[in-house]
């Protein structure tokens, strides 16, 4: 099953390499990984999406918790949560394609953020499925370049991940 694990990590050099190292060392999957500082400058927040059986996921969370620099973590997929990913896509856009692409971008509530005579650059945010859906709708033949940030997530409601 696909899981989104959110981790508060000491903002120290080398901390990220321990997390990444753990995944490769123990043969766990990483689908995406994002990391950035938080409002507390001593902490970074890392979100990793992974897949595995319940047993593997349990091991992943336990092994992550064992890392000295992991302060706290939560498996967001255990409860209601919001996940978002940002994508920038360069699309071939000439002639009649231009109006067609514009319509599709609107349906997906994206934005065209850069334009040339033959290329549109589109920005789109949403869960990973929505981003996949957009690419599918456009058709891969028109896609020149894709960059995705990877998933970040947060729990719904009152629940917070903090110290």
């Amino acid at each position, binding site marked *: 099953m696909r899981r989104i694990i959110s981790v508060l990590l000491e903002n120290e*050099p*080398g901390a990220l390499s321990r997390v990444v190292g753990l995944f490769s060392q123990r043969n766990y999957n990483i689908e995406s990984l994002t990391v950035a500082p938080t409002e507390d400058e001593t902490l970074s927040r890392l979100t990793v999406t992974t897949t595995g059986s319940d047993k593997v996921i349990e091991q992943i969370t336990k092994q992550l*918790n064992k890392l*000295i*620099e*992991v302060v706290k973590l939560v498996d967001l997929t255990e409860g209601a949560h919001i996940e978002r990913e940002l994508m920038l896509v360069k699309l071939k856009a000439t002639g009649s394609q231009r109006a067609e692409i514009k319509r599709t971008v609107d349906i997906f509530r994206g934005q065209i953020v850069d334009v040339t005579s033959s290329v549109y650059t589109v920005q789109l945010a949403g869960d990973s499925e929505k981003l996949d859906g957009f690419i599918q709708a456009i058709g891969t033949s028109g896609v020149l370049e894709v960059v995705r940030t990877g998933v970040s997530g947060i729990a719904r409601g009152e629940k917070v991940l903090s110290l």
Partner: protein
Amino acid sequence: MELLSGADMLIRSLKDEGIEYIYGYPGGAALHIYDALFRQDEVKHILVRHEQAAVHMADGYARATGKPGTVLVTSGPGATNTITGIATAFMDSIPMVVLCGQVASTLIGEDAFQETDMMGVSRPVVKHNFSVRHPEEIPEIIRKAYYIAATGRPGPVVVDIPKDMTTPNERYEYSYPKKVKLRSYNPAIRGHAGQIKKAVDMLLAAKRPIIYAGGGVVLGKASDQLTELVRMLGYPITNTLMGIGCYPASDKQHLGWLGMHGTYEANMAMHHSDLILCVGARFDDRVTNATEKFCPGARIIHVDIDPASISKTIDADVPIVGPVDAVLKEMLSLVKESKEKPDADAIASWWKQIDEWRAFHGMRYETSPDVIKPQEVIEMLCRLTNGEAFVTSDVGQHQMFAAQYYKFDKPNRWINSGGLGTMGFGLPAAMGIKLTHPDDEVLCITGEGSIQMNIQELSTCKQYNLPVKIINLNNQALGMVKQWQDMNYESRHSQSYMESLPDFIKLAEAYGHVGVRIDKKEDLETKLKEVLAMKDKLVFVDIYVDRFEHVYPMQVARGAMKDMWLSKTERV
């Protein structure tokens, strides 16, 4: 406050941490530190002949005393030479701190002379590692390093120290922190009361219970609590290779150790049990055999300080995270208070069954009128040292024979590399023990293959007068490899012979020690007695043993725990 250089702060921190001995080897990046060492005499340095041996020495010391060992090496090759030792300690959860020199911080990343990314290289085999970024951090990092190494599930910690962190003429205020603050590291201090209660209820209701104890009991200093609980319940107990000594081997409730080369009765009792109380062990693949066939009728209570060890390979019905001593103590008081008592009839018939298994095999082996059997050497050594020696071993058949036939009644006496299986461990580990236990008998049981992996340490033994006894069970082969080739590769002995063996007697003498060769069965006892009488001499005893012997029992690969070879021809 005192002003000290980074190097002086480092050595002072070691002293304030209570470190008496460090084991190491100097080199460029560590020279400021070695100079600081020279200018004091409280922290003593042992100069080994290879950095790997320094780590095993620290490790042997830690296993025998329960206190963290300390290593000091230079950058680059000095640091990389420690890796096997660190991995050995990591796999067996041994507390130690390894201090590594590093090129100056201004040179890091430039492929400077003797630069290795020790943080990166060591990361998968340490509990944690630190890189010093400012000299003022040194006391705090050292304090944290020892704290992390020794608490929770222990393990090795590396501290990487760039040379400019120890510059002699840059001085800083020194004070050694009393407390450690680590918001993200809080090992459990007690088990969950509800879970413990549940476990005790299950224990008292069991019909075919068994206690399966591991190295965690030794590391967690919980032998007394375990022994008391097991005696009170009257249940059978087995332990892992790492747990040897956590319960007296000579006691009738003890079934010997379990797993690949465990006793017939221990493996049979595990397989047929209805309840397993696992304490400080981790269901290693050398114990469980095929996990899908593991103990089909057993429910499992698993006590461990490390939550990640629980339900990793075998699912626990009742997981209990906590220090084994505290959890066992709580179990004990609950058992004492409880109105329920063990089911006497069920337990009696369980013992009857176990005693039949015991009688069926025991630890028999075939003797010969003229060839020395490795097993009888160990049995004799056990008798001649009253079962009270510290015994280190290397890796191979000799290791299994030592563990099977030397009966340990105390913890911290059987010292071996169980998790990583590191040939070359035995001699330096024995040295680390002898240094701090000069009046105790320290035996290194080894093979002619393994001993050559750190033979250079005979020189260190001379320098520091470490009269350990090296018992070389010389079968003129990489015996364990050869055994597997006999059993799985139709005796195609690919690279498992040790050709052109040195004359170990002359070798020992060249290093200034005594060498004794034993190749006649009738000489065995007298010569061993003579060897043990040479209290202040390192003696290398080269014993020519049966070249064709195999270690049995041996679990059948991919079988259940109960599937074993009992000799070359008997399979159950």
